[in-house]
């Protein structure tokens, strides 16, 4: 397993290099540059823009720009955001706690909902309950998050007054106090729920189908014949087998936790990586945009590696060497 892991990690290096070239070229292929939005005769002048272009190296040939960037990147210097004028690493670190908090909460909600619904539907396939769950799931899949977000705000914040609709914490609370954390949780519930509930469909349906399939297998029949309790059959024998395909999702989930939810974060004014990423694209903030893209690529690769390793742990029949 160790050998396998090391081999995979070494294999990532050329992959990341290729990704970096693609990311860089795509970023540069975007029209304009980070200064094109700054045309305002009251605030700046053409000389300043020309000078900044020179200083930021936008006039250098592309390969030179690429190597300047990748050289810093490898050494952990992600560059300085052209919009926020601060190191990108600080900028990302500032946003990560919010994003991880939101990502973990929404995943938690997804898992809870998907497992309870999937197990229920799998045990009673083709009943009304199963169909209702299926219907709800596909409805969730079909509703875009920005619609769900706006409706959730309208209903739960404005009509019922249950949850806040903006920010990640109440104004004026001391960081670290119990009140502060309760407020954090209170603020994260609605965006997390919107994100989490809409994503349950694939998990639930995978789980359901696998449970149905497994329940017809020989080892289940044997267990039944032995007189094992149905609950035990489902919760131990079948569930353990049915989780394996879900591990594939876990690999992507790790990247999802960091990548944030662009639209949900914007609607709920929840300052996280997703919002930062969107802004960096619209303002051509190359260093920020490229750093986030690289980070997400890396996490997806690592997530997949972890998923592959977990296969072996959950199912000893899958051998890795």
């Amino acid at each position, binding site marked *: 397993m160790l050998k396998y892991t090391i081999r995979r990690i070494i294999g990532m290096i050329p992959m990341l290099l290729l990704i970096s070239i693609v990311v860089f070229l795509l970023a540069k292929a975007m*029209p*304009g*540059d980070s200064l*094109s*939005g*700054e*045309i*305002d*005769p*009251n*605030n*700046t*002048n*053409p*000389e300043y823009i020309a000078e*900044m272009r020179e*200083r930021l190296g936008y006039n250098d040939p592309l390969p030179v720009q690429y190597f300047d960037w990748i050289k810093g990147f490898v050494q952990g210097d992600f560059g*300085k955001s052209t*919009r*926020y*004028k*601060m*190191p990108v690493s*600080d900028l990302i670190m*500032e*946003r990560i706690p919010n994003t991880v908090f939101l990502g973990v909460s929404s995943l938690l909600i997804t898992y809870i909902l998907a497992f*309870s*619904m999937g*197990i*229920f539907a799998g*045990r*009673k396939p083709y009943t009304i309950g199963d169909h209702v769950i299926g219907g709800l799931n596909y409805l969730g899949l079909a509703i875009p998050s920005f619609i769900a977000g*706006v409706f959730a*705000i309208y209903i739960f*914040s*404005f009509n*019922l*007054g*249950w*949850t806040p*609709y*903006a*920010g*990640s*914490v*109440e*104004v*004026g609370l001391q960081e670290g106090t119990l009140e502060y954390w*309760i407020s954090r*949780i*209170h603020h994260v*519930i609605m965006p997390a729920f919107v994100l989490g509930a809409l994503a349950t469909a694939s998990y639930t349906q995978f789980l359901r189908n696998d449970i149905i399939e497994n329940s017809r297998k020989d080892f289940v029949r044997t267990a039944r014949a032995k007189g094992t309790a*149905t*609950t035990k059959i489902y919760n131990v024998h079948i569930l353990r087998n049915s989780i394996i395909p879900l591990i594939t999702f876990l690999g992507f989930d790790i990247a999802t936790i960091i990548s944030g939810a662009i639209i949900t974060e914007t*609607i709920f*004014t*929840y*300052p996280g990586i997703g*919002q930062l990423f969107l802004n960096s694209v619209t303002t*051509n903030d190359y260093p920020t945009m490229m750093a986030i893209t690289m980070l997400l690529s890396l996490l997806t690769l690592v997530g997949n590696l972890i998923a592959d390793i977990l296969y072996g742990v959950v199912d000893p029949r899958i051998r890795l060497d």
Partner: protein
Amino acid sequence: MKKKSLQLLMIMLLILSAFLAACSSDSSSENENETGGETSDGEEGSEEGASGGTLTYGFESAPEGLFNPAFYGIVTDADVIDLFDEALFTYDENLQPEPGIASWETEDNKVFTFTFEQGVMWHDGVELTVEDWVFALETIAHPDYDGSRYANVQTIEGAPAFREGEADSISGLNVVDEYTLEITFDEARVNNLVNVWSYPMSRAQFEGIEVADMSASEQVRQNPVGLGAFKVDNIVPGESIELVKFEDYWRGEPKLDGINIRVLDSSTVVGALGQGDIDMISLAPVNGEEVEALDNVEVITYPGLSYYYVGFKLGTFNSETNEITEDKEKYADLNLRKAMAHAINRQEWIDAFFFGYGSPVDGPVPSSHWIAADSADLSTYEYDPEKAKELLAEAGYEDVNGDGFVEDPNGDEFIAKFSHYQTTNPTFETRAQAIVQYWQEVGIQAEVEMTEVNLYYDMVEKDDPAIETFFGGWSTGADPDPTGLWGSDQIWNYPRYKNEESDKLLADALNIEVVGDDEEARAEIYKEWQQLISEDVPMIFIAELQEIAALSSRVDNVTYDVSGPNLPYEWSVTE
């Protein structure tokens, strides 16, 4: 067994709802505490004339966090800065400078003597002296400075030499004493005063920080220190800022206890105002009508300083020599341009796309500016399709092949291409389409081309052949000098309009020997210039917009004029 799993589901639902209920009760008790606190404050206040209380100021976009006048890049940051910092002089409702912390004297418009008020304090308790202003000017002129304000310093004598590293200080700055600074500009100009950088920077705070590191420093991003009525207490990046009153504010104690800034998404603005969660916000035209329907909110409009236009590409700009040549033939015919102007129903267009929060503008200066010429003195182009058709015929544009659209004087197909920028705003394409339809109605075949906004300005700036007529907007500052947008050696002169008379008028208006320090004389020249432009139609001037603000009924003493809201120390709230 069936029952058990159903039970499980029910239990989970119960837990969830209990969780939600717990949170909601938590929030309502918080709210009660808050409002309770505020009412008691309000009562105290009513004894001494409405003071105390906290105002919640809503922002539709998140600040970038560059909370220093010398470094900020976007308007949102500037709005935050206005609450805790203050310039040395302010602008009245006619955009004329008036003394604030500093007053000035000059005899020749070249050498100015500024005198500071004594006892003006920074939020950290250090007294403001002219050294702080010198520090700000030298920071901006420093070669490592990464902001865009150098244009406001370069006219000071010796600033270019300082920037090149040839001098250790700016020779035009002469510190007479702690409260007196003499500034010598490189030449006498009428706009030296309004152009010069007028925000001091706390020397004590930035001590030991390299200029290159300033914009990322804590002093700019987390703990900014200013001279204004409120000081920054806590910043949660991207979502909220708490400001508390600064008791030693030099104009007197502010009436409010504090201001909370909250960032919210534009889709929640109306709901938040209705609930009374925010007291003050500037509105987008699209939300105006819905907010006006709310009982607890007042919508205030005040004149803005921006205008929209449809420009004609008349030539090209040579960036090597900084020269414009009017070498594009397609729209060279004055009558064609006039016809296209007469074809557009501006009022209808503004009502449809800006919900009435705007009015037609007839020249390159918004009508609320002190140099704006009266529409009666300008050549105006009212909506008149018949006149447009006549002008077209006069210019030789006639429908030769009977397709319903005119051909150019040579008998070739004439298609006007209209470019507009595209963002996520869905109304942009429709409003561009509307303009094109006006042209089609008078018989000009026209088509729209939407271009992504970054690429758009790139193409307009580089005179891309695909750009023929284009949509754009400009805003005017306190200093009315339009040379940057209209001079024939300027890259931002997008229509590539070249007219020696215009150049001469613009130069005269700045020439101290022609206008002296007589604002009237200067305004007269600008009016003459506006007449010239309106006669030549290098652009069709479409609309000037109003600024719209929403104030909840508990807010008092907030007033707006063309220079923006009044100073925040006067604001107050009642219950």
